[in-house]
């Protein structure tokens, strides 16, 4: 027995009038189009920085693409570190929604017809089955976030004197947003306490319940943290690059 009607084509038929999402006033194509444009732009920029650039330090600021700074021969320093946040974002539960919808049309928008293509297997087969390893990317990214906090603190040290520059503020904002994104991760929510069935059964469980609640607060807006931190990562790097090129002058206030 066929359990449902055959998959229909993209055109609207009498049975399938144009799909109108009542919960959003934006047209159905806008979100996927935005994601394609934003992620493509960031992707191209990141490739340029990681593989083709060698400088990202303008004292006392270090570009987030280069932290921790590892210099070995002619290899661009970004190569050593950028893979961690890259894999983290690629396997992130929010970005999965974003790219499955926009790059693959699975589905482009809720209830709209999908392109009949190769058999859909979701995250059960290569390469998407690797999304199940998201937690390992989280571990690697936490290490990087620790370095970024270190960099952000150093960014207030102007030759031994405390000061605040526009760069310091940017670096701090960047690491705050990155922390909000990283520690709102669903894998971390699970690790923090989501895997417990009983939150009250032991002292440790009660403590983890509190942590789980805290992670949940960050997790609710995981998408916004993801976009905001992506923007500040690029912004901070561009700012430092413009300082290096002498295009901008860093406004500073040093004690």
């Amino acid at each position: 027995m066929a359990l449902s009607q055959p998959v229909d084509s993209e055109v609207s038929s009498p049975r399938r009038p144009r799909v109108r999402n009542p919960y959003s006033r934006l047209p159905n194509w806008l979100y996927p189009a935005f994601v394609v444009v934003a992620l493509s732009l960031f992707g191209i920029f990141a490739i340029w920085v990681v593989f083709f650039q060698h400088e990202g330090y303008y004292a006392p600021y270090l570009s987030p693409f280069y932290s921790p700074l590892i210099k070995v021969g002619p290899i661009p320093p970004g190569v050593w570190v950028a893979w961690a946040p890259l894999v983290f974002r690629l396997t992130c539960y929010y970005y999965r929604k974003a790219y499955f919808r926009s790059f693959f049309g699975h589905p482009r928008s809720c209830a709209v017809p999908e392109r009949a293509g190769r058999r859909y297997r979701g995250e059960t087969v290569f390469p998407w089955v690797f999304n199940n390893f998201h937690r390992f990317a989280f571990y690697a990214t936490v290490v990087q976030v620790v370095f970024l906090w270190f960099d952000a603190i150093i960014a207030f040290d102007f030759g031994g004197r405390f000061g605040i520059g526009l760069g310091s503020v940017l670096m701090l904002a960047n690491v705050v947003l990155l922390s909000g994104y990283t520690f709102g991760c669903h894998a971390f929510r699970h690790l923090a306490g989501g895997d417990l069935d009983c939150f009250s059964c032991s002292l440790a469980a009660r403590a983890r319940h509190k942590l789980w609640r805290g992670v949940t607060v960050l997790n609710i807006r995981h998408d916004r943290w993801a976009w905001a931190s992506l923007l500040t990562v690029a912004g901070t790097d561009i700012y430092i690059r413009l300082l290096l090129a002498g295009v901008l002058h860093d406004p500073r206030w040093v004690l």
Partner: protein
Amino acid sequence: MELTSLDLKIWRGDAKGGDLVSYRVPVREGMVVLDAVLWVQANMASDLAVRWNCKAAKCGSCSAEIDGFPRLMCKTPIDEYGGRLSVGPMKAFPVIKDLVTDVSWNYQVNKEIPPFTPSDKDLSSSEPWRMQQKDVERVMEFRKCIECFLCQDVCHVLRAHDLKGAFQGPRAMVRIASLEMHPKDVLDRRPLLKGKAGIGYCNVSKCCTEVCPEHIHITDNAIIPLKERMDDVYFDPVRSLVNRLGGRSRKRPAD
């Protein structure tokens, strides 16, 4: 301008085929789509098939597609649609007649999920069970489900790819979550998740959450935490080893 009449198109037909038929319905204040459909049934088409019961968004019977989008007819005010709308049966299930579909597949799936299973000790105890508020809170969200199957209808795995048999769908994930996270349940449904329930087919594209009339965070609170729990056993060698050595297999395998 106050609406006086509604241009209502209703899909009429059965398993063999059908089409949209137009009806002109006088508008009353506070009218919902179900009112308009029932007006047509009472005054213009007494053979119109429509399933409903509570008219209070609590029985989950009146699920349909309004302008191609899954919603409850009794909870949808017509003035959201500016004088013109169409109603059709749920697309993911076989049509019986007009707006009525055969949703029995969902009940079959439900039977495949091992029911609530307390420990022998709890079962034989004559004392009332005591559970802390914080332990039941999380599963209470899942218990709000009214089995409208709108989430099943919108899920592209079932709707566009017709993978019933491979993936049990978001409603089933909500039920499994309500059992898996229950402090008094001792069964391990993770093999079920990986196997027959097919959680890997979900690509966290989140349409189920968008349509749920009970505002259950299906993806964030049920599916993603269940994916993480499945990952503990099948995709995290470190954790599964630690759990096995530490004897944390408190749970019994389901059959």
